[in-house]
């Protein structure tokens, strides 16, 4: 079975631009979470979606938004990019809602903002 997939794998943007990152969860998984990992640090929680509803939000500005589609795939959108948004963006899926079950991570999208 395919694991969590993310696209694109790498992305270069300039300050002020907008970016959309995509995630497909493991088949049958209904929960998707997004994390940001800045170089040298651990991942930081951004959003969690379960059954197409937002169920959690981390301490990120409103420039960050996300949604989950009927097929449980998800998009993370970031507006007005800043240099500090350069990071590895990770998507995780789980069978049930939340962090009480094993979270399976995708390979990530590496975003560089110039």
């Amino acid at each position, binding site marked *: 079975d395919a694991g*969590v997939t993310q696209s694109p794998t790498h992305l270069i943007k300039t300050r002020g631009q907008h970016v959309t990152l995509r995630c497909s969860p493991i088949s049958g998984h209904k929960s998707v*979470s997004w*994390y940001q990992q800045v*170089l*040298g*640090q*651990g*991942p*930081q*929680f951004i959003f*969690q979606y379960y059954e197409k509803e937002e*169920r*959690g*939000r*981390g301490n990120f500005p409103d420039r960050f938004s996300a949604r989950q589609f009927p097929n449980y795939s998800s998009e993370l959108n970031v507006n007005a990019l800043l240099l500090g948004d350069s990071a*590895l963006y*990770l998507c*995780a899926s789980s069978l049930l*809602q*939340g*962090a*009480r079950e*094993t*979270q*399976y*991570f*995708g*390979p*990530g999208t*590496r975003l560089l903002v110039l």
Partner: protein
Amino acid sequence: SQQGEEDPQALSIQEGENATMNCSYKTSINNLQWYRQNSGRGLVHLILIRSNEREKHSGRLRVTLDTSKKSSSLLITASRAADTASYFCATDASSSNFGNEKLTFGTGTRLTIIP
């Protein structure tokens, strides 16, 4: 904010030796998970231990959890070159099934296995 703090930040050992990493956290938790990350790629789930468990094994991995000390340890026995990676602990401290459930990660331990 970082809930978990791994110790040490970096560890280098000879192949075949055992590697021990520690994780401390600040609040009560539902579970603690350990992940491995190779060269800034995606995270690979290693093991999940729930708050009512004290020890779990998976292959060459042994995880302990001491909720009274708010700490966990990951032991990798008979290390291999392929174990070279960063290791993160992550805690779930959510208070309800419909609350703000998330994993809070530590800063990681960088493990290097010397052939």
